[in-house]
């Protein structure tokens, strides 16, 4: 796979495509383009599956990365989402296999995927407090413990 091929297919600027090596591509996009980009990636040659969805805390924002696997490469689509308004469109209707990954990210980071039919807890207990998102940097292990009223 080549940078030019991704640029042509996704119709985005070349500076938004970062080439790490000939098998790893990172693509920065806007929230509103997410569904369009995923749809276009799926139509590209050698597409196999969505590997997973990673979320990470970058300070003011959170970053959600969609790892889309091809037989000859792995394209990681990055979307920024703010902590005040953590809402992203769900891609379940395009790739049904994304359902559990979205639920996992919702559990651990509190990002709401609009359009996902079931965002009930997947990993956390049923009685987990609503405002604790364990993988956000603000919630250190000690803070989580004191909030839950437990000890180490």
């Amino acid at each position, binding site marked *: 796979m080549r940078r030019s091929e991704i640029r042509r297919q996704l119709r985005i600027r070349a500076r938004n495509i970062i080439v790490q090596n000939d098998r790893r591509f990172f693509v920065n996009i806007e929230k509103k383009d997410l569904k369009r980009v995923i749809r276009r990636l799926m139509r590209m040659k050698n597409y196999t599956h*969505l*590997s*997973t969805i*990673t979320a990470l805390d970058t300070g003011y924002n959170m970053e959600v990365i969609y790892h889309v696997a091809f*037989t*000859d490469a792995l394209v990681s689509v990055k979307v920024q989402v703010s902590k005040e308004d953590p809402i992203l469109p769900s891609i379940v209707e395009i790739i049904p296999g994304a359902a559990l990954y979205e639920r996992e990210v919702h559990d651990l980071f509190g990002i709401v995927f609009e359009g996902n039919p079931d965002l009930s807890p997947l*990993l956390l207990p049923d009685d987990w407090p609503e405002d604790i998102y364990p993988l956000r940097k603000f919630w250190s292990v000690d803070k989580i413990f004191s909030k839950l009223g437990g000890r180490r």
Partner: protein
Amino acid sequence: MSFEIPFGPQHPALEESINFMFEIEEERVVSVKPRLGYVHRGIEKIAESRNYQQLVYLSERICGICSFAHALCYSQAVEQLLGLEVPERARFIRTIVAEMERIQNHYLWLGLTAKEMGFETLFMYAWRDRETIIRMLDMISGKRVHYGMSTIGGVRRDITEPMIKRIEKSLDHLEVRAEYYTKVCTKDPLILRRTVGVGILRPREARALCAVGPTARASGIARDVRADEPYAAYGEVPFRVVTYRGCDVASRTYVRIDEIKESIKIIRYALKNLPEGPIRIKVPTRVPEGEVISRVEAPRGENLHFLKSNGTDKPERWKIRAPTLANLLSLCKMLIGVNLADVPVVIAGIDPCIACAERIAIVDVNMRKLKVWNGEDLWRYANEWYQKRYGR
């Protein structure tokens, strides 16, 4: 003359907890809802407070059966960040251990699936043969489960000349056994009745639900990280990606037995062409800033680690995606329409790491009654049902 008697299948790792909510109509499953988290240990959170060297050991403890696959995936990620080239001998040893682990895992799976079918003799046979390969792993690494072989910059133990001889001898034995299991699983009418046409996952569904590993390959999709994105020494070792088109539990069995044979060939080739040289190189403790993705074909399917470093000795974020999570939705799809008596076999079919349906709640649509069963009740129900029906 010495006797070897396998003692007890009881093991905590094989009774891990997962909850499925089944909705059934008469005896057919209408809908399934999985619930995870009973064994969630927060490894991704723990990782933020450990340094890279410590995490090698933590990564190995993600899974008790495919421990090497996780350690290898993590080591590769850190090596990518450091820009290291692993010595050639280390790459070959990694391939050998990874394939030995695959054989070990597939025999384990064969045994468990046989047990779910109520075929306990096959269960004993498969686990006895698994012992052979575990002994070899024990000989190389000194450990039976968490081998502690992979590390950042290479492997920790070498494979010597006498070891090669013993491994080759055990491989000959395992090959004969694999042939025998092919015969049993393709000819035995009882196994065929329990597996053929059970738990169907069509290729279109497998693609849409992003299935990985043997689950996808049994639906005719040649998806294998070893072939798509060769790591370790897979680029230099010839092998075949095994696929079957049956889309049922029988195909999943054949894929795994054929993969055992394929793994034996890979190990033989790698042992024969094992290059000379060092097995590891020295690595710095500080890791430069960056983010990498490492992929490995674990025995159960694609394993993905995402690692982001911030220039210190601890990672900023380490994301792990184990193959069972990727196959869980496919499992739910397979279970719909299945007879309740076939549920244990279908669940075993994807080789779930959070194995054995420990707590099962059944909602009878017509009666609106809630029954809660554990894995043993379901197992008993399934085998009695088949006994009544086919008189065995």
